[in-house]
């Protein structure tokens, strides 16, 4: 029995169609929405953190390595990207406190993004050698410690000519169009999906399910964990570079542990082990925290002039964290569990239901 091309790939084709529709929507927003629209800032963040969350999911969800070093790798990526893309003539003014920038050339966006990933990956390689032998919580602590060390080191005056010390870096190239962000994140996520569904992805899942059995089946734990860690960090570095683009300024103080926690919460809300879940969750998380729930921060008055109780600066985050706790406590599998979106199955179910009703 030979399967036809359509039979074999129907799910992938339908999902591809969905991606194209979404991309078209992004381009439409880019062209049509007024420049003051919240869509711009929110979508930039969504794409950035969708990539960060998916890369965290590759490590935490698919390989079962509980790492909390994301902020550190994003910082490395952000700094690398920012340092490499400042126009040469502006370097003196950015690095004015340290004489001059150590680097005196400017890279185009794509190579700079790759460098961002590679720098993060190289650090992951170095830190991974000793740290990946540790078990669950200890690994989490060690990677968290690593992220804090990176953050501490970057701020040092001694590295000033390279990192601008504690001062923020700005004036680097940051694309305006949101479809560029969509394209970068989309390409990276596609690569991650391809990896997860390859023979390596199966080996990662085997390690997650049962380390001892995986090892007995000939999967070298050290090298596969290392591979997953490096790959995840590579994409984390690119997500960091995208964050630099979003904010058009990079400062080490923003890459705190709570940023890692945020990404972790996105992963959890989406479902640990679901890539489409992470993407949906990134959208819901940032759209609601930056946009839909913004009204909670404003002091609002009713028509009668009475102040609506509780509303005021900071209330949004309280509501938001309560919502997160509800998800964590009562909807533990998240939006998607370990499933993935399948447009084909969705419609197939829809039509079969209708067919059933007609009978």
């Amino acid at each position: 029995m030979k399967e036809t091309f359509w039979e074999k790939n129907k799910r992938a084709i339908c999902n591809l169609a969905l991606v194209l529709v979404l991309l078209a929507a992004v381009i439409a927003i880019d062209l049509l929405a007024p420049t003051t629209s919240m869509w711009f800032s929110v979508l930039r963040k969504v794409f950035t953190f969708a990539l960060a969350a998916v890369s965290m999911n590759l490590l935490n969800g698919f390989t079962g390595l509980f790492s909390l070093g994301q902020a550190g790798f994003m910082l490395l990526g952000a700094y690398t990207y920012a340092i490499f893309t400042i126009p040469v003539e502006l370097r003196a003014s950015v690095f004015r406190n340290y004489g001059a920038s150590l680097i005196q050339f400017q890279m185009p966006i794509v190579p700079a993004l790759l460098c961002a990933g590679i720098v993060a990956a190289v650090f992951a390689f170095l830190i991974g050698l000793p740290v990946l032998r540790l078990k669950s919580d200890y690994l989490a602590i060690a990677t968290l410690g690593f992220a804090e060390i990176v953050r501490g080191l970057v701020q040092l005056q001694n590295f000033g000519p390279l990192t601008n010390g504690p001062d923020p870096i700005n004036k680097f190239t940051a694309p305006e169009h949101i479809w560029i962000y969509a394209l970068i994140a989309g390409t990276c996520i596609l690569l991650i999906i391809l990896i997860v569904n390859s023979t390596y992805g199966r080996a990662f899942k085997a390690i997650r399910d049962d380390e001892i059995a995986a090892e007995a089946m000939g999967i070298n734990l050290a090298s596969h964990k290392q591979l997953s860690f490096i790959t995840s960090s590579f994409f984390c570095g690119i997500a960091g570079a995208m964050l630099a683009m979003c904010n058009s300024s990079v400062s080490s103080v923003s890459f705190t542990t709570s940023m890692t926690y945020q990404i972790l919460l996105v992963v959890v809300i989406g479902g640990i082990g679901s890539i489409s879940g992470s993407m949906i969750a990134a959208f819901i998380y940032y759209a609601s925290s930056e946009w839909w729930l913004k009204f909670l921060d404003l002091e609002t008055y009713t028509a009668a002039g009475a102040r609506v109780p509780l509303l005021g600066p900071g209330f949004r985050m309280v509501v938001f964290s309560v919502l997160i706790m509800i998800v964590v406590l009562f909807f533990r599998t998240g939006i998607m569990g370990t499933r993935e979106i399948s447009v084909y199955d969705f419609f197939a179910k829809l039509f079969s239901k209708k067919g059933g009703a007609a009978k």
Partner: protein
Amino acid sequence: MSERPCVLHAENISMQFGGVLAVHDLTMDVYEHEVVALIGPNGAGKTTAFNAITGVYEPTNGAVWFCGEKIIENHPQGKMKKLYAGGHNGEYRHVIAKTPDRLTKLGMARTFQNIRLFKSMTVFDNVLTAKHLRRTSNLFTAALRLNYKEEARQRKETLELLELVGLADVKDELATSLPYGKQRKLEIARALATNPKLLLLDEPAAGMNPQETVELSEFIVEIRKKFDLTILLIEHHMNLVMDISDRIYVIDFGKEIAAGTPAEIQSNQRVIDAYLGVADDE
């Protein structure tokens, strides 16, 4: 027997935890195409011995060869130097400890006493994953699907293997949703997918009823023929052991007390004593 090449040769294996000598100077050979069983009363040190010669634990002293290649060697170190109570101290000078994945690559595959399947995967993927170790692709070629030929071949082989062991009809079910007996079978199939020369079975009939045990022994005989295997197993079910083994090693308190064919073992007085106990005051 001795004309046949020796697949596994364990020499003077001792395994000591603190002051307890769990395995004491155990020497055993497994020849090509043999089914060898390691038996003994509860707590005799079977599983420890099994783990020590298969690379899960590092033995305290002794060495193991697999198909002529030395895969494990150790001698008492550190605190153990003083504490060591086994024999052949000083005969082994090197430390060779290959991780289990290396041993599997060399051609030793095992199953576990308490089934360890990949829980989130389907039956098919469980077996397919065991093909990973024979890959020629790297992360890039695999991600970009440049290894599609290899992938297709692995999928085809996996399907064939599942058909052979009679699990093809449940291939898309979650591994953990299978009934117990089939999970055992799947674990063996997964081990077979690594193309082993030597198959190590750790209590394959544990938790099975008599009917299932009979089926299992038929299954083991069948796969041994089909895959040209050598098998080493630990087992409690004497019927199974006596049915399928060519030779049996019996250990008690970590020491070998008898070795021979099933018939020899069945009539060996020391074995009977070890299993039934000897009354002290008689």
